[in-house]
């Protein structure tokens, strides 16, 4: 079957037609012939399918808040064609069985490529290394390792982990949070935590770990990826590390590009997230860090939670926000519409570079002949009043309800398969059932 996308603006540039056959892009230009299916994409921007390096799919163990299938659908709705499923499931993805299970369920769902992330330490306990080699050589071929949700706090263990993971060509994605500096921490430490009487999560707890880790990366010659950095100081540390030539990459989340800690004012747990929302100065610094390339990528940290874990006091509530469906709109709002970056940069920070960090094949030459047909078509002129009705996953813990957000994902193609059509998720016959 063949499909032609007509008159899409290629990454914000000139309009062109894109012809898809057998899951591949076979022609891009003005005379690409006819096809079985034609899509009028005038006014839409074509991006390479988005790649999320930081997704919590909750399966196995947390199926009441998300499954690999429901999370895959949420990802497709947000324009993603690949996601990295974090290891903090139950059981933890610290061995080949669990990562292969996640990988297989991703294939069955069929909406996106699900790339399991392996734990760095057994049971995320921070004590002994997980089965890193076995996961690297499993069917899932894990390349990204992370104890996300927890920090690899012990300096010796982090050194060894960097060296051992590098042995298999992988990368450690560190959740940078000094455990001792953040005991019982509830929100950013500052004027708002002082007023609300909530235990503070100081910036230095993130910055000190990043500083240690970039030095360990330099010393060991290993690659380091820093998850969801949230402070102006963290941006400075990464900038310094890159100037020294250290092999470090960094990510920011959409919510840290937009929201600030004063939203905790009414103790609404929808704004409770880890690392916490910071101040306006931090948001500005993180935006500038993305714009000047210090921060390499935007990743969602999509963290579904059932309503019971948010329908309670702030301290009792779980950390985390869903973010797959809203990510592209927030990036447009915070970075594109503010003039900080263009659409080609969006393709870089949300597709090409996260794919490179995660060693995901098929994204190195976006929207060119011969590459996989992972394509997202977005209408940048659309606006949406955000709400839970815009979500496609199992949980509704979005912090953006009520905001008027720009941009809408109109179509998503995953290896040529139409997963989102006219803004609606396409019902695929699950591969597992076929």
């Amino acid at each position, binding site marked *: 079957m063949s499909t032609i996308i007509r008159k899409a603006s290629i990454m914000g540039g000139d309009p062109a037609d894109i012809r898809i056959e057998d899951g591949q892009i076979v022609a891009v230009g003005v005379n690409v012939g006819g096809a079985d299916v034609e899509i009028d994409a005038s006014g839409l921007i074509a991006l390479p399918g988005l790649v999320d390096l930081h997704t919590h799919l909750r399966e196995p163990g947390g199926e009441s808040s998300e499954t690999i299938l429901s999370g895959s659908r949420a990802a497709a709705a947000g324009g993603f064609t690949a996601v990295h499923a974090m290891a903090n499931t139950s059981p933890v993805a610290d061995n080949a069985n669990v990562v292969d299970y996640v990988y297989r369920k991703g294939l069955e769902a069929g909406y996106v490529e699900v790339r399991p992330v392996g734990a760095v330490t057994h049971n995320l306990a921070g004590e002994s290394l997980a089965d890193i080699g076995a996961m690297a050589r499993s069917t899932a071929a894990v390349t990204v390792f992370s104890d996300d949700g927890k920090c690899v706090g012990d300096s010796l263990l982090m050194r060894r982990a960097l060296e051992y993971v590098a042995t298999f060509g992988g990368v450690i994605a560190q959740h940078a949070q000094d455990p001792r500096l953040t005991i019982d921490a509830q929100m950013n430490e*500052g*004027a708002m935590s002082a007023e609300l009487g909530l235990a503070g999560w100081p910036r230095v707890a993130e910055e000190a770990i990043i500083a240690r880790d970039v030095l360990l990366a330099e010393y060991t010659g290993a690659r380091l990826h820093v998850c969801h950095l949230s402070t102006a100081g963290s941006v400075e540390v990464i900038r310094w590390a890159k100037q020294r030539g250290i092999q470090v990459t960094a990510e920011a989340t959409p919510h840290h590009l937009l929201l600030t800690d004063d939203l905790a004012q009414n103790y609404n747990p929808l704004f409770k997230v880890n690392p916490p929302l910071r101040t306006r100065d931090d948001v500005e610094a993180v935006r500038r860090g993305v714009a000047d390339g210090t921060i390499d990528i935007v990743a969602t940290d999509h963290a579904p939670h059932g309503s019971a874990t948010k329908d309670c006091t702030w301290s009792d509530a779980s950390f985390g926000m869903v973010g797959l469906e809203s990510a592209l709109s927030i990036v447009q709002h915070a970075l594109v519409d503010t003039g900080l970056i263009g659409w080609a940069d969006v393709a870089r920070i949300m597709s090409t570079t996260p794919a490179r960090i995660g060693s995901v094949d098929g994204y190195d030459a976006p929207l060119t002949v011969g590459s996989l047909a992972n394509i997202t078509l977005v209408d940048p002129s659309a606006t949406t009043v955000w709400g839970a009705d815009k979500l496609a996953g199992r949980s509704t813990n979005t912090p953006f309800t009520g905001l008027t957000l720009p941009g809408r994902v109109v179509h998503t193609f995953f290896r040529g398969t139409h997963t989102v059509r006219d803004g609606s998720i396409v019902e695929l016959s699950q591969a597992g059932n076929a």
Partner: protein
Amino acid sequence: MKHFISTRGIDSATAIRLLDTTADMADVRQRDVKKLPTLRGKTVANVFFEDSTRTRLSFEAAALALSADVSTFTSKGSSVSKGESLKDTVQTLESMGADFIVLRHCDSGAAATLAQSGWINAHVINAGDGTHEHPTQALLDAYTLRSRLFGDSARGRNLAGVRIVIVGDILHSRVARSNVWLLATLGAHVTLVAPRTLMPRDIAAWPVAIVHTLDEALDEGVDAVMTLRIQKERMNDAFFPDAAEYTRFWGMTTARFDAVRANTLVMHPGPMNRGLEIAGSIADSANSTVRDQVSHGVAARMAVLYTLLGEDAS
């Protein structure tokens, strides 16, 4: 006012009205018949997820003095999900007829969450939430100060120009927070004293002066010193080295007491660690307001119940 959650945002006129209503209630408590029929047929539910016998008894006495029915729920919050049990507990109590929920909870913001959640329609009174606020304590403290300083001419007055030092674990103190907002609204000059480890960061916007030793604060001349209870386990978390050093720099010792003006008031919200943050002889002296504070607590809580009920009538 539907709920009483925080002293922050209470305007000056409302604050003075609450103090005057507290005075009315204190008068009632001096009469032969110490009860008002105000809350007859209403139920006040005391929901205490954190132990505080004295605060609970004070609220119970206040509710009974207004002829309310009183029910009491206490729990140490040991269940797996405290949040769920908070929601379930208050919904159960409301279906059993509670018109007022008096909530004491170890989580900051618990009372605010209850008031905003839509879980219940009852009035919510914050009887202490984590390290956030304890607004009825601030009301009784302000009332105690006003009546001790101004006696029979106290009614209708604010605390303009009154100099108050609050010393102790400001970081973890809900009493300090509620007092800061209310005392500042009433025009008092508040100085906070604590080692840097026990002072919140980034409080430049608070309407207070900040110093780090008690001697520095007392040098300025003060009308009242409010000593806060210091929890001994703070020593184990390296907030300060030991009790002796705490007393040396932040304790209300007899030496410090002898050096201040003779009529300086010494306050403590209780329960006291005698000999640690306050010398026993000072707590028992004529300058101490400790027993007044306990007695005024009932009147202040009556005033809050009375004021919230007024909301239903209007």
